């Protein structure tokens, strides 16, 4: 039984050579609520995201999940702890169907040794059917079950984006980190995504969304962090963020993007 535990970043600093990307960034992602991370282009959102997922390793600061320090662990080891992510750029395998791409998201939970990789044993068939059912359920959840057996090259970017999110959620991880999930989605697809994410919410799930789409963030998130020039400038509920003077100056001032 998973225990509800937060994902914590404590005074994380990251520099590439002389370029300071993140400075003493702290955030606590509480389970049971949707947390948003916003900020202008180049604010360091994706860098922070990559620090959380293990793609980058911060020079200073600690990251821990469920009380376990994550420093020094690579992406695969963090995945094994139940942290799943999606990618800003579509990262589906072009040789696999949409369903198979989602199935790969179950790799860690799937059994089956090397012998059954080559020989269709009864155990393998049962396991495949069970995994297929779970993958199909994730696709249905996001409303793209009809595209399950198509190749990524045959589908529009919006569907692929949803497929990638399906892949992140299929293993029922303890933490889901989504990097701009609504990028490339039209209004209807964004709405579907939002409903799907709300259905996904469990009391023990940590859910972080990095996003440009302010409407989506404001509607979906209960807690929002704002990053600018590598520093955390504000955090709070959507109402607090809306009223925050620094946030207003970033988003409504001369630097406004999107």
């Amino acid at each position, binding site marked *: 039984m998973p225990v509800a535990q937060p994902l914590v970043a404590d005074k994380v600093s990251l520099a590439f050579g002389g370029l300071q990307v993140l400075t003493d960034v702290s955030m606590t992602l509480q389970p049971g609520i949707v947390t948003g991370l916003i900020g202008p282009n180049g604010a360091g959102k994706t860098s922070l995201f990559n620090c959380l997922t293990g793609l980058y390793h911060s020079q200073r600061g600690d990251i821990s999940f469920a009380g376990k320090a994550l420093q020094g662990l690579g992406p695969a080891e963090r995945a094994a702890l139940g942290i799943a992510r999606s990618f800003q750029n579509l*990262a589906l395998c072009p*040789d696999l169907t949409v369903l198979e791409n989602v199935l790969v998201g179950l790799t860690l939970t799937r059994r*089956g040794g090397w012998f059954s990789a080559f020989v269709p044993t009864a155990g393998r068939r049962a396991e495949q059917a069970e995994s297929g059912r779970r993958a199909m359920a994730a696709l249905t959840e996001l409303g793209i079950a009809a595209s399950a057996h198509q190749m990524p090259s045959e589908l529009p970017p919006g569907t692929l984006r949803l497929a990638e999110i399906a892949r992140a959620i299929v293993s029922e991880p303890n933490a889901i980190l989504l990097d701009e999930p609504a990028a490339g989605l039209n209004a209807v697809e964004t709405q579907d995504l939002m409903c799907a994410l709300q259905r996904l919410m469990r009391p023990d799930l940590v859910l972080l969304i990095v996003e440009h789409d302010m409407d989506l963030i404001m509607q979906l998130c209960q807690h929002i962090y704002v990053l600018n020039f590598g520093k955390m400038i504000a955090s709070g509920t959507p109402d607090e963020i809306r009223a925050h003077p620094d946030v207003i100056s970033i988003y409504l001032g001369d630097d406004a993007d999107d």
Partner: protein
Amino acid sequence: MRFGFVALAAVLMLAPLIAGGFLLYSLSLCLANALAVLSVSVLVRYGGEVSIGHGFFVAVGAYTVAIMEHQLGLSVLAGAPVAVVLGGIAGFVFAFPSRRLSGIYFAVATMALALALPEILIGFEKITGGFEGLYIALDLIPGVSKAVQRYYVDLAVLGLACLALAQFRHSRQGMALLMARAQPRAAEAMGITISWARISIFTLSAALASLAGALLGFSSSTVSPNSFTFWTGVFLLVGSVVSLNGLSLPAALVGGAFITLVPTYLAQAGDWVPILYGIALIAVTLIANAGDLRRFLPGGRR
């Protein structure tokens, strides 16, 4: 499609009734070489890497069968499984230190295997037979003519290998390897370790090459440094390219037939053989970065 496959299977099954003598012998070699080509294609498809040193693993398999017969008096029936294991071990031993190499650097590393091969075969004269090599005389099925049993054993193993690879494509490991090759970062985010992927696929490919070597030794009745040179691995790569890195039985047969029959039947053409290989190799160079011809094909799949 289905009809075509049945027709191909029928032709392959009935070939020994029509063909005999040298042609049947050549066809057996085609089948064994097809499996060797398949081992290179597996590496290209699932690992995205090019090896020019697979001749090494083929030699491991062939010499395993020969040495087991000479030292222990065991036939290919015992030799082939041992060859698979030893080939896999050799592949692992090579892949582990090379796991962070890719592209041209990896290909150059495999060249070390190809360059070392003749030296090893000659150096360990006592067990490899040195320049003269070893003969493989034991039959697998007593009472059946040598030519016929060679052909059917090769055909059966090649057929089973293709079936097993078709299963592998839909297995947990197969899909994880494809993901690791196409989207390494995404694969890692799903818990697939890239080093694991690289070592696994190379070990698998080397084991397959070694099995092909066992068949090749069995079918040609002899192993010697003349049959396993630096060029063996290069020819296998050419065969893989000619078969469009395909993992199906027809694709493997095209590759195997190309590298077996072209040198045999164009022997009198002499200088044209390397030129033909040269043309095929230029194709390799052109696609080296992609390691994959499929994207040039209509449909772009399979």
